[in-house]
């Protein structure tokens, strides 16, 4: 009795994506890229870039994270819904950080 009323309208929508099998070759390329980035981030830490040091480190980490999310975690091949979900998670994380920082940054601005 499961699929007799299967309605295509419910599957051909932005919440749906055809399943995609990612092969070992792609994974290997991603793997090598990640290792390379790890090397770069360690190397960059030994170069004095002043204020840029943490920024470079975080930029590389974010790039790595995005690569993992897109390919290892298949978000690249997923429906819009999943992409939105991932984005929403990071968006809320950013709210937590920025809104809390409004307090900490502006505390030094004045007497009160």
């Amino acid at each position: 009795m499961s699929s007799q009323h299967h309605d295509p309208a419910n599957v051909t929508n932005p919440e749906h994506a055809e399943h995609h099998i990612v092969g070992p070759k792609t994974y290997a390329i991603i793997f090598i890229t990640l290792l390379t980035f790890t090397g770069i981030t360690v190397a960059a830490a030994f170069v004095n870039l002043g204020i840029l040091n943490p920024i470079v480190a975080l930029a590389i980490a974010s790039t790595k994270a995005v690569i993992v999310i897109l390919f290892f975690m298949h978000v690249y091949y997923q429906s819009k819904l999943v992409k939105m979900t991932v984005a929403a998670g990071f968006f809320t994380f950013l709210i937590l950080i920025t809104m809390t920082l409004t307090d900490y940054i502006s505390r030094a601005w004045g007497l009160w």
Partner: protein
Amino acid sequence: MDNTIVATHESHAEEHHHHASLPQHRHHFETEEQQREAGTFGMWLFLLTEIMFFGGLFFAYLLYRNWYNPAFVAASNQLSIPLGTVNTAVLITSGFFMALAVWAAEVRKKGMLVLMLVLTTVFGLGFLGVKYFEYKEKWEKHHIPGANFDISEFVNPPLNPKTGKPTEEPLAPDMAQKTQVFFSLYFAMTGMHALHMIIGIGLLFWYTARAQRGDFSSGYVAPIENFALYWHFVDIVWIFLFPLLYLINRHPV
């Protein structure tokens, strides 16, 4: 609004109630596809909660790193970059094998799947092993926050035998005290991460056994796929933890 009145079949359904059989196993999903996508989506929502869970810790880190930068630099220098780098590579490798495990399940190669899961586990355990030695060193140096925490190494850094100069910039006692905040966060963050790894490895044993039984080599890959999402998420956390904790300030002094 379109107010067209359409009679649905529910009215008929009611008449059939008494003839309907109640299957023990409820197929509450319309299709396998729907079930699989629901699973993936659910897993992602769970990962969102994980993002926010670590988010609180990351914010605490961000705040105190800015407040007590010298202490964070000095304390971070106590961590071993080679060990950290090796561990990053180990974890990425583990993630790589996990990704291959998903592929193996999708193409229904049972032997390959089991091998990949075992490799994932081995590298995961390797990561925890290295972490154990790092923790042990902190314990020996009294860098575990709490009553036994010792700041003397930051106030009076050991001298370099060759040059006779301190190996590190000495910290004023009040700042040196703040290294404890760094180590608190270090243990909270890496501890939470390690806890996730331990849970993951526990699950890996179970999935390996099930894979060996052949549960996932006939097209039913959702559990492997969703577990892989979890495992990769744990990777991502480490990808951020590594530069934040180990590489704060490593440029030649």
